[in-house]
């Protein structure tokens, strides 16, 4: 756990200090002590770097915890927030929002949050109607995602400008993050992570199987649906300011499980810390790798996540043999 904390701090400091305009540790310390000032270093730090780094940390922590919860609840190590319709819901809502001519950052953030949460709730409702069966939740997610993707394509076909306007959102990144959008989403993420941490024991009991969990006094349906709802809120809050960042919710819980095991009381906080550090580091690499041009963080994550997913599939095939 201390290692994950140290990783987060190092990644955050590097994300703040490195970039087109480098900032020394001394200047960082001075800016933190004296607060926002008029110097160019202080302005860069307080108005550009701090919000951006905070956004990467919050998105990383939120998506990693959301992924860990979904994988645990559905007992499916290949699950991630996308499987409960979060990305498709957000994408459709943003396409509709842009298609209707609302292009402001606030409109896109609000639409993506609502879209993500609504889609996930539809999937959770399908799960409820089918007695919260794990398989039905996954299949419900596939069906909802397919329907929403069709709606998105229809909107983009009818209003081509919507495709252009929602491009940044669909790719995912932190270049346009601002403090005002970050604060409400950040509050949801922090409260959500604390709630999941305090209920981590329930997740572990749930993973013993429905019958055992029930006879240990756990309300299986309520906990499964409640946890999926929490995961949806976390992921929805993240996509509202970062756009669709694929694979964070898949990669981080996997690596975390390998490092510290599957006990949720340790896994969830570890995922929050390491996920935050991971996205901060990816954002830094995305900014630096083709400097002065900036690669959207979502693209870098896809470069990393695609091969990782293939590796997972091949590893799973070996196990099945």
């Amino acid at each position, binding site marked *: 756990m201390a290692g994950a904390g140290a990783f987060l701090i190092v990644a955050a400091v590097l994300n703040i200090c490195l970039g087109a305009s480098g900032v020394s540790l001394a200047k960082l310390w001075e800016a933190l002590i004296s607060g926002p000032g008029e110097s160019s270093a202080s302005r860069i730090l307080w108005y550009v770097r701090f919000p951006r780094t905070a956004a990467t940390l919050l998105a990383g922590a939120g998506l990693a915890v959301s992924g860990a919860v979904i994988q645990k609840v559905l*007992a499916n190590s290949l699950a991630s927030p996308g499987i409960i319709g979060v990305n498709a819901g957000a994408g459709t809502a943003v396409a509709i929002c842009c298609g209707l001519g609302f292009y402001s950052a606030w409109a896109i953030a609000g639409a993506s949050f609502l879209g993500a949460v609504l889609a996930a709730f539809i999937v959770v409702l399908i799960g409820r109607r089918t007695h919260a069966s794990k398989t039905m939740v996954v299949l419900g997610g596939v069906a909802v995602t397919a329907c929403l993707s069709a709606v998105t394509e229809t909107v983009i076909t009818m209003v081509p400008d919507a495709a252009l306007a929602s491009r940044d959102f669909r790719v995912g990144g932190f270049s346009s993050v601002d403090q005002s959008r970050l604060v409400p989403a950040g509050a949801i993420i922090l409260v959500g992570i604390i709630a999941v941490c*305090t*209920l*981590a*024991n*329930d997740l*572990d*009991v749930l*993973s*013993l*199987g429905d*019958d*055992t969990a*029930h*006879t*240990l*006094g*756990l*309300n299986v349906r309520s906990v499964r649906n409640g946890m999926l709802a929490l995961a949806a809120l976390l992921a929805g809050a993240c996509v509202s300011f970062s756009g669709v960042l694929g694979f964070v919710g898949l990669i981080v819980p996997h690596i975390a*499980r390998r490092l510290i*095991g*599957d*006990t949720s009381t340790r896994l969830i906080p570890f995922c929050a810390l390491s996920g935050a550090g991971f996205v901060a580091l990816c954002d830094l690499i995305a900014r630096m790798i083709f400097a002065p041009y900036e690669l959207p963080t979502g693209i870098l994550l896809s470069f990393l996540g695609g091969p990782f997913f293939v590796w997972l599939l091949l590893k799973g095939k070996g196990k099945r043999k």
Partner: protein
Amino acid sequence: MIKISGLRVTLDGEEILKGVDAEFPAEKISVVIGPNGSGKSTAIKSVLRLAEASSGEIMIDGRPIESYQQKELARKVAYLPQSRNVPDISVRNMVMHGRFPYLSYPRRYRKEDHMKVDEALKMMGLTELAGRKMDTLSGGQRQKAYMAMALAQDTDIIVMDEPTTFLDIKNQLDLLARARMLAGMGKTVIMILHDLEAVLHCADHVILLSGGRVLKSGTAEEVLSSAEISEAFGVAVGFYTAEGGQHCYVKPQGQSARV
């Protein structure tokens, strides 16, 4: 003491239990036997509210089962299901889950919980294995870990669905000895078993189910020597005495029972 009266359970439109009347006496080992599909698992699941009764009554210590809150019931009855997930956690963490019914928000274990877990691990001979991962244990060791979890749950009643399945002979005997130990500690043990020889040696009370009804109940000798058991299984069942003890034999019906 558990008393079941007129219990009917319908699953997916099929009536599985058709008016079951049975008693599971306190501090004894009760064994439910019967052919496949006779409703054994459904009957014991009803006692845990895992299967919903369409009619009838289940009383636990004189109180209707519906009057128990879910956590209250979990502090009364522990369950070892037939098929179990093997989580990627340590034996100690697994046994700690037995204390879940005693936790309130925000789910922090107290000193008493750790003491109960230490006791349960010691009783099952698992203290040395407490740090091992569950998925690295043998079938017999896993079974003991689940029994330790049930012990940590600190209930009056422990229900086991075919606990000897997948165990070798030595581990089967060890498990039955531990079930006897639990009954000696004042716990009511309810098991489903298929091995009639094991039933003969460990059961204080036997309930024979067939076609969703109780055909016979009583001591092991009474039930295993009854005409109903042959009717239920479609085989001839009887006893013989050897090496100073009674043993059970099973023969296809129509063949003479020569020993």
